[in-house]
Every structure is written in structure tokens, then in C-alpha cells.
């Protein structure tokens, strides 16, 4: 029992990060049909930039804010320099571009930062809290709380502002959005910026628990993608549920089978979703585009 609870805690913690990565995928996909495989690099950049700015002497909160801001700049540059010039290309080409961008960013991080693992000090120390025989790190609660804040802010923005409605409108009907005078390029750029900010924040929150290095983005992108598929690509609710579910699946697989198989879970989920329910848990059935 205590063991299961322990698996659940660790599953929910990493699952939260997968959920945030999946949410980033969802935002960009809804605005542009692009699946941004550089989403994992945003997480890496958030963590790594904070680490290095903190090492350079910046106070942690300031380092974190600066890391988010610089990741947003990277997200905007990715849109403006790589995606926007190719916007008439077919989706496969755009996906290749984002994969290329992620390789580039990883290489750049290796040069600008280094190849070692780094961590950040947890906000509320590292004394585990005991609940029902299981232990949970205070930082895990910080990750969860951070994710809740992000999701609520995003929801309020989308539901309560006209700009947010324009975001929904653009994803619901791109042609109509252009015909009412929405600059859809601006909307796509905005979605890259917000996705970058969410990814960076996730990277900063999780680094005290999982450590970070220049190459953590690859696997995170894959897992975030698996989570988004599981939840149904395009569904924000699906992204969150899919992320948490994938985290839990991984944690239980690692606990009951072997931690060696942990990373295989994401691949299995992708395959299973593709074969058994292409629209995921909350996705709309949509017409196959080639």
C-alpha cells in the first residue's frame, strides 16, 4: 500500500512535467497544426539557463525569470526564423524543421553551457514529508502547485479575454479567423512564446528533483508527445490528463517491472494509441490530413 502510494507520488510529479510539455505541444498544434518537437528543449533551456545564471551570482528568483524570458525569445525566434518562412510547406516538413531546431538548440546548449548534470536548490528544502508511509519531497508539491497555477492562468486567459478567444477561434477555424481580421501569424507566434514559457517553467520546477543537462529535452519531447497523443492531440484537458497518466504508468512500470523499462512506456503508449484509439482520450475525430 505504502509502496503504491510512493509510486503514485513520483508518477504524479514527473507526470506533471509531461503534462506541461504536452500542453505546450497542444497550444502550438492548435494554432498552427505544427507538432513542435523542440518543446523539450524549452524545458532544458529553462533549467540550464537558471542554473548558469544562478552560478553567475544572480538570485534564484531573478535567474528563473530571466531564464523564462530568454526561452520565450528562443521560442519566438524559432517561430519567426524557422517555422514562419516555411508555413506553406506540408506538416511533415514543418515537423522535420522542429526536430532540426531541437538538435540545433541541444548543440548550442552543449557549447554555451556544458555537458554535465546540474541541479538547483529545492525551494523548501529536501526533507521528505511522510504521508501514509510514503515520502514526498516538498519540491514535488512545488511542481504540482506551479503546474496548477500555470493551468489556471492559461485557462483564465483563454476563457476570459478576447485575445484568448481569438486563440480558440484560430484553432477552431483558421480561415474564418483570417476573414475576421485576426493576424493568425501573430497568434502562432504568441502560442510559441507561451509554450516556451510553460516549458521553461516546468524545467525550472523539476530540476531540483530530476537534475538537468543539455540533453534532457529529447526524452521529454517524446514523453510530452506521448502524453498529448494519449490525451488526444489538440485537447488541453487531454494534455494534462495524458501527462499525469503517463507519469503514473511509468512509475508503476518502474516499480513493478524494472526501472530499465520506464522509458519504454512512452513508446508503448504512442504505439497503443496509434493502433487502438488515434483520437486519444479527449480528442475529436478529425479528418486525416496528409
Amino acid at each position, binding site marked *: 500500500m505504502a509502496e503504491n502510494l510512493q509510486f503514485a507520488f513520483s508518477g504524479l510529479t514527473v507526470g506533471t512535467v509531461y503534462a506541461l510539455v504536452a500542453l505546450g505541444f497542444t497550444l502550438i498544434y492548435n494554432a498552427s497544426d505544427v507538432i513542435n518537437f523542440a518543446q523539450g528543449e524549452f524545458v532544458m533551456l529553462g533549467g540550464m539557463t537558471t542554473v548558469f545564471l544562478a552560478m553567475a551570482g544572480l538570485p534564484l528568483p531573478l535567474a528563473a525569470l530571466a531564464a523564462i524570458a530568454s526561452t520565450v525569445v528562443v521560442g519566438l525566434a524559432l517561430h519567426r526564423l524557422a517555422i514562419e518562412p516555411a508555413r506553406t510547406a506540408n506538416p511533415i516538413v514543418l515537423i522535420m524543421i522542429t526536430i532540426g531546431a531541437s538538435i540545433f538548440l541541444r548543440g548550442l546548449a552543449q557549447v554555451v553551457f556544458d555537458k554535465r548534470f546540474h541541479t538547483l536548490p529545492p525551494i523548501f528544502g529536501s526533507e521528505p514529508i511522510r504521508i501514509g508511509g510514503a515520502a514526498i519531497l516538498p519540491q514535488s508539491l512545488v511542481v504540482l502547485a506551479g503546474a496548477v497555477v500555470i493551468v489556471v492562468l492559461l485557462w483564465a486567459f483563454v476563457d476570459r479575454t478576447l485575445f484568448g478567444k481569438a486563440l480558440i477561434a484560430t484553432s477552431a*477555424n483558421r480561415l*474564418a479567423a483570417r476573414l*475576421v481580421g485576426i493576424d493568425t501569424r501573430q497568434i502562432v507566434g504568441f502560442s510559441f512564446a507561451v509554450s516556451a514559457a510553460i516549458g521553461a517553467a516546468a524545467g525550472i520546477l523539476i530540476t531540483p528533483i530530476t537534475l538537468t543537462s543539455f540533453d534532457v529535452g529529447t526524452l521529454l519531447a517524446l514523453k510530452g508527445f506521448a502524453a498529448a497523443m494519449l490525451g488526444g492531440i489538440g485537447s488541453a484537458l487531454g494534455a494534462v490528463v495524458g501527462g499525469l497518466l503517463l507519469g503514473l504508468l511509468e512509475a508503476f512500470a518502474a516499480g513493478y517491472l524494472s526501472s530499465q523499462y520506464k522509458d519504454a512506456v512512452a513508446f508503448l503508449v504512442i504505439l497503443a494509441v496509434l493502433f487502438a484509439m488515434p483520437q486519444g482520450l479527449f480528442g475529436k475525430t478529425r479528418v486525416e490530413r496528409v
Partner: protein
Amino acid sequence: MLSVEDLKSCYGRIEALHGVSVEVRAGEIVSLIGANGAGKTTLLRAISGVQAVSAGRIVFEDRPIEALAAHKRVALGIAQVPEGRQLFEPISVEDNLKLGAWTRRDVDFKAELDPVYELFPVLFQRRHAAAGTLSGGQQQMLAIGRALMAGPRLLLLDEPSMGLAPILVEQILGAVQRLKQTGLTVLLVEQNASAALAIADRGYVVETGRVVASGAAAELLADKRVRAAYLGV
């Protein structure tokens, strides 16, 4: 007010418009009629800037606009009610209307919404419903209302009567006539040629990407060839 000169447009390698010229004067209702696949929608899309143009000019109020982005053309005063309505289905009726005024976010929404609700009172009753849940006629009213919220001087309408019962067609086209009386200029695309020409000042007949006839609406209605091809008489 609007002058389209020798416009060509392609889908991939296939040219859909082979040099179309159309003129719309301020205050007019101009009807564009033609069979399936003639290129009517392509022309309206090109005017709105959501369709690439390979040759020709589009001049709106003495200003060439063929190179302008779609959202800038809306800001200049050209709004379109697209074929198939193209509503923001998950979004409420009222928010669809507000998004219609996207290029004029500084306006007082209430003052802009009132005339639309007055024109189509049923939209007021259903203002909190998701657009996708409306009936076909209500959806068409919303599509028109949304375009009006942009405060256009030129309204492009693409087959507003499509799929509607005769009584609703009458209601919609009646609304278009009333809009004309407020000073709005209208370019109306229709397959329902008799209904479209009945409310129009002038008309153009389009066949396979070319204008094959044009003239005063009454003349076209009387034209033997037009009657045989489009009016079924």
C-alpha cells in the same frame, strides 16, 4: 469602390481564374452568378486575401490591395461572409460577434452589437449558445452579423442562401437589401440566380474562371442565354 482587373489565381498548377475583371460601385448590390466550380468562391477569397493571386490587380477605394495581408483588408473595410458560414463553432454567438470586430477592438461592443441584434433578433435570444448549436438559418444570420461587426463598407457574401428553406432565403436576402439602404455596398455570390438578380443592381455571370456576361440585373434576368443556363426557363 472595388475594381478587380484581369485577376488570375491558381490552386497548385491548375488555374481557377483566367483573368477576371469585376467592378463594384459604392452603394450597389452586385451579384455574381455561375454554376458549380465556376470560380466565384475563388474570386471572393482572392479579394479577401486568403487566396494567392498570380496576376492582376485588386483596387479598393483607389488603393491597390492585392499584396496586403488578409487582416489588413478587413481593417480597410472589406468583410466576407464565407461559403459554408465558417463560424467559430465552440464559441458563443456573442463572442463570435465580438471576434467579428477584432480589427476595431477600441469600439464599444454594446453599441456595435445592438444593430446586429436588431437585424437578427434571434441572435440576441441565443447569444450565450455555442455557434455550432444554431440552426442553419441562424448560423447564416450569425455569419452575416459577424461580418457586419467589422464595420465594413464592402460586404462580400458567398452563397448565403445555400441549404436554406425558401422562407429563410427570403429573410436573409431581405436583410441584405436593408443593409444596402444603410449605405453598405454588397458583392453577392449566388447559385440561386433569380433570387440574387432580383435584389441586385448589376450582375456578372462567371463560367469556368471567366466572366461571360455582365450588365444591369434586369437585363441579365431578361437575357435568353442567362435564363436558359441559370434560371431554368
